[in-house]
């Protein structure tokens, strides 16, 4: 079993121990390659937003605090010694940034509030009642489409993806559970994600002018993609 399945705060993915993939990228950043930092941003910006959104309601403020988190991370990266996983380090910066936001407003928030969510069950995030009705509707539509895209996957792909992205199992563990080679697991996970990206693309900003409003996206069934069996 993976060494990384022990308790980690919700939103933090278990990281394999050993030479980290992130460390290769971090080394490039420290050597002066700013593009390498962009790789880290692309990889983890969603997680950072999720962490902050648990502590802050206002979407615009979430965005500002996420940007502040990345700036702090960029400044502090030379001090990152790789003793913990990169996201563990980044998670701490993000939570401190959000906490400072509340402290500046004269309120405090505890870490328990961050760690109370999540679990082994696969559940989509709840709607946030602070949002405008339009945003709530869009978010609801996105969640339904994501659920539909996941449900529409070939069962072997769906199992592989949920075991990886929800349960946090390693490819090796998934290969044992599904009784197939690791290469097959890798391929199923990639193709499953790719299919979901295709179905969700209109929601994820690829067609910004078409998707800023509501009700103009195609339902997954309308995409007409042939499913593998």
């Amino acid at each position, binding site marked *: 079993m993976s060494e990384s399945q022990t308790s980690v705060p919700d939103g933090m*993915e278990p*990281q*394999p121990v050993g*030479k*980290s*993939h992130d460390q*290769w990228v971090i080394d*490039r950043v420290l050597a002066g*390659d*700013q*593009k*390498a*930092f*962009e*790789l880290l*941003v*692309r*990889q*983890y*910006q*969603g*997680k950072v*937003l*999720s962490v902050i*959104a648990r502590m802050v309601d206002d979407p615009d403020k979430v965005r500002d605090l*996420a*940007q502040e988190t*990345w*700036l702090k991370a*960029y400044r502090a990266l030379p001090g990152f010694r790789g003793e913990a996983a990169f996201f563990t380090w980044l998670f701490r910066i993000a939570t401190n940034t959000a906490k400072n936001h509340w402290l500046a407003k004269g309120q405090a928030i505890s870490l328990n509030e961050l760690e109370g969510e*999540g679990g082994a069950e*696969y*559940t*989509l*995030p709840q709607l946030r009642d602070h949002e405008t009705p339009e945003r709530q509707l*869009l978010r609801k539509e*996105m969640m339904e489409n*994501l659920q539909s895209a996941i449900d529409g996957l070939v069962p072997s792909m769906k199992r592989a*993806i*949920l075991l*990886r*992205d*929800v349960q946090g199992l*390693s*490819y090796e563990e998934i290969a044992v559970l599904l009784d197939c080679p690791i290469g097959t697991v*890798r*391929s199923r*996970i*990639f193709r499953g*994600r*790719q299919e*979901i*990206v295709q179905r*969700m*693309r209109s*929601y*994820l*900003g690829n067609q*910004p002018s078409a*998707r800023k409003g509501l009700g103009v996206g195609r339902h997954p069934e309308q995409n007409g993609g042939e499913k593998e069996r």
Partner: protein
Amino acid sequence: MTCNPELVSAFLDGELEPIIVRPVVAHLLQCDDCCQTMGWLAQVKENIAGGLFWQDPDEMTRSIMGAIKNEKVYAGHTRLFDRLRRFGVSAALIAAVLAELSPALLAEMDQGLTGGMDRPSSDGR
């Protein structure tokens, strides 16, 4: 190395063979398409895991990297000020030490110059 989004997906999961990590990173650094693919895959991965939906990850990345670029310029200025400040502090410390020691040093130098010679007495004898 040619584009291989399957490897990009495995990179996101930290599941690449150690021998191939370096070429994949090198490829990602020079291939905007694969870099963008990684952003999409990361977003979907996060959504599946129950994370926040964010409509435009590309725009968010651009915004963060824009701020980082400004930060880089700012960091350059900061480094210059840091250096000046550091030198300024050093110079002030040296000056203070010299000021403290100078009466004693001057006296010693004075003694050195006149060493061995009998000073004339105040009455001229």
